[in-house]
């Protein structure tokens, strides 16, 4: 059994690792790799206005969607029953029930919302967008309370539609994460925050993961701000890349605060220590200048010693840990201590077990 445990070198600017080598293994691997095979998304558009149909066709094609169109709510429901599931269903708020039926513009429009209700009865989790271009804001659009969670498209500009589609894709990708992927993300986040030391300023792995998710959502319709997710990139790969970049940013912020001698840079203890009665206190709480006191050195040295002490009964683990602490790469460690690929992989597994994401440290 060959495991790939190459410790990836991260690119300092891109904040993303080199693509990992692919090694065949009998075990299940849902480890992140950059590219993802994604078939084109599908959309059902229920809209009777021809100019809007053309607009949606163009926009959806641009976003890699294969669109099916219906001009009234009855055809829309029939197509949905015959061809579901769709990645998204766009329903015009004022679509007629059948062709040839005029719309009373002054009367209540209900065929669009009725169609949305029928689709929801068939599939509760079907992502939908209601197109309500005649309204200025979402609060003005009358609709049943059961449909209040469906996003509304009130703006014809492309950015709103693109953003809504991207948001749906992200929600789907999040919902599709398996238990092992979620555990892997959590562990990754915990280690990254733990590596930040004082620069974490009291943040946890959950904070890091949450921030990565938020930036992805903010970057949903944008390639300029936030963290835009390309749907052809593995979602776990994307989130881990975001977490690398965010944690590096936190570190830079902390270093800048230290350079500016901001007292708050020291207010949050990184390694809380408990006193005799179990109360947490920080030995750094009185340090108020850019010159870290000897206590800080001791604490970090202590953490390093503690990690090494955990592996004292395992000579190979101690060697590999020492190599990692000294900044050696995988090949360097293997050649220095005469380990082959399998031995190295097994040792790293043992280290992960020993150290654990929160191993032996009270927070």
């Amino acid at each position, binding site marked *: 059994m060959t495991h790939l445990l190459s410790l990836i070198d991260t690119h300092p600017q891109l904040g993303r690792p080199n693509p990992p080598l692919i090694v065949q293994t009998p075990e299940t691997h849902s480890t992140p790799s950059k590219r993802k095979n994604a078939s084109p998304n599908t959309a059902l558009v229920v809209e009777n206005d021809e100019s809007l149909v053309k607009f949606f066709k163009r926009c959806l094609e641009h976003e890699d969607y294969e669109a099916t169109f219906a001009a009234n709510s009855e055809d829309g429901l029939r197509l949905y029953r015959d061809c579901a599931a769709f990645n998204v269903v766009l329903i015009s708020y004022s679509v007629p029930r059948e062709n040839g039926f005029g719309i009373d513009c002054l009367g209540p429009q209900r065929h669009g919302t009725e169609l949305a209700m029928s689709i929801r009865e068939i599939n509760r989790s079907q992502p939908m967008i209601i197109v309500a271009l005649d309204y200025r804001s979402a609060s003005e659009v009358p609709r049943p309370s059961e449909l209040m969670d469906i996003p509304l498209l009130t703006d014809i500009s492309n950015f709103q539609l693109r953003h809504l589609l991207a948001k749906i894709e992200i929600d789907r990708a999040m919902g599709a994460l398996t238990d092992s992927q979620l555990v892997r993300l959590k562990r990754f986040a915990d280690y990254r925050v733990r*590596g930040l030391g004082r620069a974490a300023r009291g943040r946890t792995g959950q904070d890091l993961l*949450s921030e990565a998710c938020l930036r992805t959502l*903010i970057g949903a319709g944008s390639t300029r701000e*936030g963290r835009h997710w390309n749907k052809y990139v593995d979602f776990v790969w994307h989130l881990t890349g975001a977490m690398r970049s965010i944690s590096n940013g936190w570190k830079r912020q902390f270093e800048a605060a230290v350079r500016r001698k901001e007292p708050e840079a020291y207010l949050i203890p990184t390694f809380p220590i408990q006193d005799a009665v179990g109360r947490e206190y920080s030995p750094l709480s009185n340090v108020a200048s850019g010159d870290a006191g000897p206590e800080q050195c001791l604490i*970090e040295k202590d953490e390093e010693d503690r990690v090494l002490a955990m592996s004292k009964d395992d000579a190979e683990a101690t060697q590999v840990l020492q190599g*990692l*602490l000294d900044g050696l790469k995988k090949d360097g460690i293997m050649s220095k201590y005469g380990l082959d690929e399998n031995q190295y992989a097994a040792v790293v597994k043992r280290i992960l*077990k020993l150290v654990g994401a929160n191993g032996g440290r009270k927070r």
Partner: protein
Amino acid sequence: MRNMADKKNNEERLERLMNRLAESVLELSDETVLAEVNESGTDPAQEAETTRLVLRQASKNFDSLEKRLCNLGHAIDSNDWHYVDGTYDNYCLSCGAWVSFETATGEIQGEAFDRSCLGNAYLIKRQEASR
């Protein structure tokens, strides 16, 4: 000086180690990842669920921001969020009211979040200003 150098050295060594361990977690098989959680006395399904909730909560926070702005009639260009020191800022295209969103806490501030869109008042002001 010795303390400063030692401190930096210790910090860097630990950071390097933890980052390498983080990367190595990505390379473990699904079975190994779940087995490790099990061995540490934690239920993997529970840990996965907790993580799922973290992601859902982040999504919910962002949803509530968007829905609130949409209900108040503001037109926010999602391409126009500007990030400065952990906070995203944007403004309504119709009335110019600003909104800021702190990613770490989910805290939302700004006049766009407190009042309805004033329609074209912003455009009118802009036109008047350009005369």
